[in-house]
């Protein structure tokens, strides 16, 4: 491996991370709403979350990095797809339970 003597600009790294975080926050909450509306139960809901968040990350990767991901992230595949996979699951479960309960109130 080549010696990494490249200088990085920390405010940009932080800004990119915040933008990715924003997209993932919105996506996880909205996916929770959708799974509540579809009244998914047990493992189906979690499968739906992982598929949905991975598709979101894929959209982010395609649209935002403009075919040159290494200019925006040090390790793009890991940082975008794997690192924050479980961070937003609590928000997802919250919206899932709330909307599920609302939709099923009168049944």
């Amino acid at each position: 491996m080549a010696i990494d003597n490249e200088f990085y600009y920390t405010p940009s790294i932080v800004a990119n991370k915040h933008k990715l975080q924003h997209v993932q926050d919105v996506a996880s909450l909205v996916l929770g709403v959708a799974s509540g509306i579809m009244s998914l139960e047990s493992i189906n809901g979690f499968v739906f979350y992982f598929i949905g968040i991975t598709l979101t990350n894929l959209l982010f990767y395609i649209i935002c990095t403009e075919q040159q991901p290494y200019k925006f992230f040090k390790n793009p595949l890991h940082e975008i797809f794997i690192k924050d996979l479980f961070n937003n699951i609590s928000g997802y479960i919250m919206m899932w339970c709330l909307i599920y309960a609302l939709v099923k109130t009168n049944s």
Partner: protein
Amino acid sequence: MKQYIYLVGLLLLLHSGYSSFEYHKFGIEISLDIKLESLIGVLLIIIGSIINIENESFLTIDNKVIKNKAKYLKFIKMSDAVQLGESLGVTDYEEYNTRLPFINI
């Protein structure tokens, strides 16, 4: 324009949610179009959130609008990242450098 994508997505989600509520009231299995409607709503909101992180453009002191070369994210390499500041004539730390006690008279 950007905010309307959010609005349309939210309306779709609201409508499909209400339909799902009514279906459950009568104990009917929810149909495919409600699922599709909610999925389209989700897709619209996600696309809206991605579009909304676009970089803002800057106005120089000579009244020129300067845009970031990348549309959505910021370059992390020092050599790329400082180019915007150079064309603009300021750095990210301008706020601190131009504080009154710091000005070199």
